[in-house]
């Protein structure tokens, strides 16, 4: 490597000559992600009010074991450790959570907002030492593509749940909840199919991009969604939370799931 060039000076934590409101974005990121994490943790441990008619909250989908009619394999397993309160959400949430936690967009965002590494561009940092993603523990972020594989399976399952949201005891109808579920799966699809790892897998890994029509279309679609990855990341985060709130409110009788047609 080339001989070192020492920087002029290293600024102290939060010291900057920037005059714009540089702290707004990391603050909103901190508040947004914190609110979501707190809500999802609370909702995951509730083990109640997560279904309503044909709806199953995305925080509990797929319900592998559980007491609702949506459960694939019936009631909770006997091997579940007694010291941990059972909830169907705990069986599945590690996969979408891992996908978001290791997502390239979120990584950059929460390193700034939660760890101040840096707090914002050209703003002084709190620590002198730095390991980056070169060493443990953050080298684990390289597992992202495996969470992507799981997320792709989840998209199929959530799309199936969105289809079920049309089926009511008296036939096929569209309720407000149906639109909520469909919007949620579209936004989640936009986020998942715009993943940087997926872009690599469908063609980016090669020096010559796919020549066949299908491969070309896949690469172009993923690249197009990838350009809006940040937007889909936030919209889908909000939609997942809202869909759970919607099901919960309907199940508790607070909101009425109005029929549209």
């Amino acid at each position, binding site marked *: 490597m080339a001989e070192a*060039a020492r920087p002029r000076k290293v600024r102290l934590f939060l010291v900057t000559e920037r005059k714009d409101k540089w702290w707004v974005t990391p603050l909103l990121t901190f508040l947004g992600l914190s609110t979501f994490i707190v809500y999802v943790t609370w909702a995951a441990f509730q083990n109640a009010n997560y279904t309503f008619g044909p709806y199953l909250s995305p925080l509990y989908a797929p319900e592998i074991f559980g007491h609702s009619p949506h459960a694939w394999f019936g009631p909770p397993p006997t091997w579940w450790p007694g010291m941990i309160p059972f909830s169907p959400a705990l069986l599945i949430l590690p996969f979408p959570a891992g996908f978001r936690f290791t997502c390239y967009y979120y990584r950059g965002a929460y390193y700034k907002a939660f760890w101040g590494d840096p707090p914002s561009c050209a703003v002084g940092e709190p620590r002198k030492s730095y390991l980056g993603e070169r060493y443990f523990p953050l080298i684990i972020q390289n597992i992202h593509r495996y969470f992507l594989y799981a997320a792709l399976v989840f998209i199929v399952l959530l799309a199936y749940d969105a289809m079920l949201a049309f089926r009511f005891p008296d036939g096929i109808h569209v309720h407000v909840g149906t639109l909520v579920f469909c919007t949620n799966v579209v936004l989640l699809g936009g986020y998942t199919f715009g993943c*940087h790892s997926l872009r690599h897998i469908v063609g980016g890994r090669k020096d010559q991009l796919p020549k066949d029509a299908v491969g070309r279309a896949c690469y172009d679609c993923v690249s197009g969604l990838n350009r809006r990855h940040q937007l889909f990341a936030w919209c889908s985060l909000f939609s997942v939370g809202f869909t759970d709130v919607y099901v919960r409110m309907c199940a508790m009788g607070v909101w009425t799931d109005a029929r549209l047609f």
Partner: protein
Amino acid sequence: MSKKVSLRIWRGDKDSGEFKSYETEADDGMVVLDVVHQVQATQAPDLAVRWNCKAGKCGSCSAEINGMPRLMCMTRLSDLPEGEPITVEPMMAFPIIKDLVTDVSWNFRVKQTIKPFKPRPPDAPDGTWRMDQRDVDRVQEFRKCIECFLCQNVCHVLRDHAKHETFIGPRFFVHTAALEMHPLDTEDRVPALKDDYNLGYCNITKCCTKVCPESITITDNAIIPLKERVVDRFYDPVRRLFRVLSGS
């Protein structure tokens, strides 16, 4: 219409320095480099400032304007807060020569350490190659770089952690991507990306993309695809197993 502009310009050398205040007249449409030149012409003839094309293409007048790395020639006064002093200082990630001029020669030494382009044998008897336009377009974006080194300056790995000896910085990840993704290139730079260029230090804050005057999507189109290639080679157990089994 002419109006008064206040400037705080960093004056000094590699040993010491401070901000000095200046006031000058500015006309509509002026950029920061214009008023710095005006100060140099009328009040501080010894003020050192590097510039060349005044058109955002040579990458010489990189500086920090109100704390953000920018080209002085491409920063209009009308885009800055009116009535407030404009702070102009040299790039922080490089040693100072004098006033606004920094020594960016480290970048050129880094470039020499990167394996150069090594094309495959020509496709045609006349010594020419055939390439798909899409493959060329992908790496063409990286060739827009004007080497202003604003991305190097804003990268906190260099700016705050001074990893100059072990980390090549976003500019040279763009350069490596242009070579590594080139449809004709046969050189393998992936092990060097991991071990010598230390791509893993990048934590994807996208500050480099934000300051690039050529709007190169540095993080999404160069750095992350290179990270994924490193993952392919070194951190993906299934791919490693596949390579062992297939003997490739």
